[in-house]
């Protein structure tokens, strides 16, 4: 039994962290947030970064080898997505993981055509529901996988009208997508909820990383900022709030690991475990955001300070892919039922 990713996955995550520390520091991130770029395909993203991430294998991480990916399972993605969260990376990471899982599960022509390009970082996939559909990363997407009552459609960018939707989070690329079913490819039948669970795990991992980053910022600030003749971090009022943030996040991470395992292995508890992960990580990250702001006080409330980008991403991601209400209801159904799926492990 091992409740952490394998060493090679951890090493890969360390490499991603190194790349992001260099290529997506807070100045770069701020530039992306404040960019006046008008082309929605580029707006909010870090120029060239996706390709660099693709070069080391991020978008292809869980894409089957047959489609040009590394064929790792979802558990290997968790530490990588924690790093994406830590950097508040404004790229279509959740969508790529969930979209490629959906394509790989479905197989067929669409998968054969698109998965290699997604793995190579040459195409961006986004996923959503309905028509019109509000879809994260839609602004950047080349391919939209859209679930409807009758089928999952593979809609190319050119066949859809994508209206950018302004968001508090400048790095989410969300858009309102209007499209026509006629003439679009349909994926071979597959359960769309499986991809949703993948998205929950990816978002949860990102939230854990966001929380870690905000906790780190707050701790660093509390060590250096002095009031009443000593560092504010020496006051119990500050200490205890930060300790609670640490605890909440430390307990969320194994829940996310476990969800990745359950989803990767299609266990009966997968939906419950995925929802648990999203719920726990979302709450931990929201607590981290509130506390980091309170500890930073005035300076944290400014647009000039980095914190706001992490907070806004946290709030947005916690509400996306099912908010707390949605996931608690989903878990409740699984917990209160007569024969709940067994606990994993």
């Amino acid at each position, binding site marked *: 039994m091992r409740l952490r990713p394998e060493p090679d996955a951890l090493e890969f995550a360390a490499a991603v962290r190194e790349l992001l520390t260099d290529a997506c520091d807070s100045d770069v991130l701020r530039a992306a947030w404040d960019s006046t770029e008008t082309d929605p395909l580029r707006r909010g993203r870090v120029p060239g970064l996706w390709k660099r991430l693709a070069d080391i294998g991020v978008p292809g991480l869980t894409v089957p080898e047959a489609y040009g990916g590394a064929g790792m399972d979802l558990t290997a993605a968790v530490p990588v997505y924690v790093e994406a969260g830590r950097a508040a990376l404004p790229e279509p990471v959740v969508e790529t993981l969930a979209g490629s899982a959906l394509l790989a599960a479905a197989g067929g022509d669409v998968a054969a055509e698109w998965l290699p390009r997604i793995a190579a970082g040459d195409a961006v996939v986004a996923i959503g529901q309905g028509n019109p559909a509000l879809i994260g990363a839609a602004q950047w997407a080349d391919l939209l996988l859209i679930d409807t009552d009758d089928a999952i459609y593979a809609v190319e960018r050119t066949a859809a009208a994508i209206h950018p939707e302004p968001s*508090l989070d400048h790095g989410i690329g*969300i858009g309102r997508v209007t499209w026509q079913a006629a003439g679009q490819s349909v994926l071979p039948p597959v359960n769309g909820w499986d991809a949703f669970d993948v998205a929950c795990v990816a978002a949860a991992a990102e939230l854990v990383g966001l929380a870690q980053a905000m906790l780190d910022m707050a701790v660093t600030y509390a060590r250096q900022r002095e009031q009443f003749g000593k560092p504010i971090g020496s006051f119990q009022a500050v200490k205890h709030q930060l300790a609670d943030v640490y605890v909440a996040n430390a307990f969320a991470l194994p829940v996310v690991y476990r969800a990745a395992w359950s989803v990767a292995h299609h266990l009966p508890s997968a939906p419950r475990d995925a929802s648990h992960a999203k719920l726990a990580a979302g709450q931990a990250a929201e607590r981290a955001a509130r506390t980091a702001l309170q500890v930073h006080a*005035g300076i944290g409330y400014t*647009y000039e300070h980095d914190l706001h980008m992490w907070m806004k991403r946290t709030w947005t991601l916690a509400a996306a892919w099912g*908010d707390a209400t*949605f996931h608690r209801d989903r878990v409740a159904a699984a917990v209160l039922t007569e024969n709940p799926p067994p606990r994993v492990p």
Partner: protein
Amino acid sequence: MDLTLDPAREAFRAEVREWLAANVPAEPLPSLDTPSGFAAHRDWERRLFEARLAVVTWPEQYGGRGADLLDWLVFEEEYWAAGAPVRVGQNGIFLLAPTMWEFATETQLDRFMLRMARADDIWAQGWSEPGAGSDLAALRSRADRDDERGGWRVNGQKTWSTRAAYADWMFGLFRTDPDSARHHGLTYLLLPLDAPGVTVRPIRQLDGEPGFAEVFFDDVFVPDDQVLGEVGQGWKVAMSTTTSERGLTLRPPGRFMASADRLVDLCRRTSSPAPALVDDVVDAWLDADAYRLYVQSTALEALEGKPIGAESSANKLFWSQLDVRIHETALRLLGYRATLTDDPDARWLDGYLFSLAGPIYAGTNEVQRNVVAERVLRLPRG
């Protein structure tokens, strides 16, 4: 006990309600934090002034009606219920004015108060400094004596000064005794933000708007007639009994009653809201109601002459947490729409960002808990 409102107050309520119904702009004014929005809000203040509604608690000679705190609460309830614009003059009217009544000379009152009421002068506060936030007594901006010119030369920096980006004047504390420490040797000064040597650098807030500013002073001359109270007594002036009234008037209940009512409305408009969220809506409504009763109760005691003490800290803890909860609940009702800035209900998001400042400004909640513990409960200092 008597919870009936006397007919004169009811009549006043009716007048306010009627005037607001006829005058509140149908469309929200542009953001306060833009030059044109600031001007629009200043115009609105003038219309209030003309209706003698800008400063109802002030003496008539300065544009008020000599109303008491209870009438003021009535006014605010109506004001917020009507969805009227944010008060651009509030720093001066609610934070500076009470101190002026207590410490200003007649000459100063004549010079400043009517202009303040009419929004000719919009005031910004000058409390915090980069090294003095929660620990306000650590402030270091200094005012050195200039006997020749009969005044003070101010050097240093203030920060988190709300509205300072466009305001006309600043009030604040400065160290006039260079050898003093902590609460001693401070003086309360009034100074125009267009004085030579003043540099205002707007700071963008969470929402990207320049809601507050840093203000730098480089040998800014402040004449003696702009000292409020005695030289060296600035701390006492700033923290005088009127502080407590400010604690009471900083956030009138009407504000949260209106928010809570809007939250109930949002909940009713939400299709099958989660029952736990409905509970939160109900709790928020009740707490807004409880806040109103607490403030009314404190105001009534103040009218009877009981000094308002650390109630203002209890007060601040309560409203600041309530405000965050009201907005958090609204965002949870909105679900994924919560962070879309063009959503028809995006006002809740703006309100949420604003509410997050509540536990920070006007003394962080950590400081307020210390005050309650030490001054009300008489627990020993740390």
